[in-house]
């Protein structure tokens, strides 16, 4: 048994599937054990839509709050935003915009990855 670093990658947008919220619940869950695993959440492809300022987050706020308290990073792939015509100022507070080469470094630093 050992503490793990987990990169949770969310590829689906809200709300057509529940992965946008259940992926966050799983991310919080990963940190709930005695070993205090650590998570980073990365939004890739269509998943980046979750970061838009106007998204209704009433069902995800509690997970985002917990992740924030734990110091977990929420990162959004810069190229995916651009491909979808989303400007950086349309991204909500608390999300870091990172180019793919930096997201790759997070992947390199993770023990495990999960995809939603």
């Amino acid at each position, binding site marked *: *048994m050992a503490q793990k670093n*987990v990169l949770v990658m969310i590829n689906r947008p809200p709300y057509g599937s529940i992965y946008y919220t259940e992926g966050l619940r799983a991310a919080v*869950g*990963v940190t*709930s*054990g005695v070993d205090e695993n650590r998570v980073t959440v990365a939004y890739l492809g269509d998943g980046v839509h979750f970061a838009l300022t106007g998204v209704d987050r009433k069902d995800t706020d509690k997970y985002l709050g917990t992740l924030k308290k734990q110091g977990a990073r929420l990162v959004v792939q810069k190229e995916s935003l651009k491909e979808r015509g989303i400007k950086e100022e349309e991204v909500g507070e608390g999300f870091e915009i990172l180019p793919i080469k930096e997201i790759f470094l997070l992947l390199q630093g993770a023990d495990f990855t*999960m995809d939603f």
Partner: protein
Amino acid sequence: MAKLGFMLTLGPFQFENWETTCNIAKAALDKGHEVKMFLYLDGVYNPIKLQTFPDMPVMPKDRFAELVAKGAKIIACGICVNARGLEKGKDYIPGVTVGGLPDFAEIVSDVDRLITL
């Protein structure tokens, strides 16, 4: 030998993920690796023991029962089970238990590899 963790988020039939999961897990067990699996979201529909279909000799639940017989530890997310009306998994094949995300956190701590499907 390695410890392999799995998280499966889709149910039987509709999408092929359950079958790929069973194929990988079975091959891993045959090779002597350890398998710990967490059924999450629609994944909790897989081990319902009453699955019946005349033309299909091996049902999805039989593939999961095979994994259990080979030593896999399989836990289903209780919140997902109850949300879907499966009454704490009362109709599950033997060997599959109902737990929670802290069990998954423990699997994550324990295993050498994590596969999510």
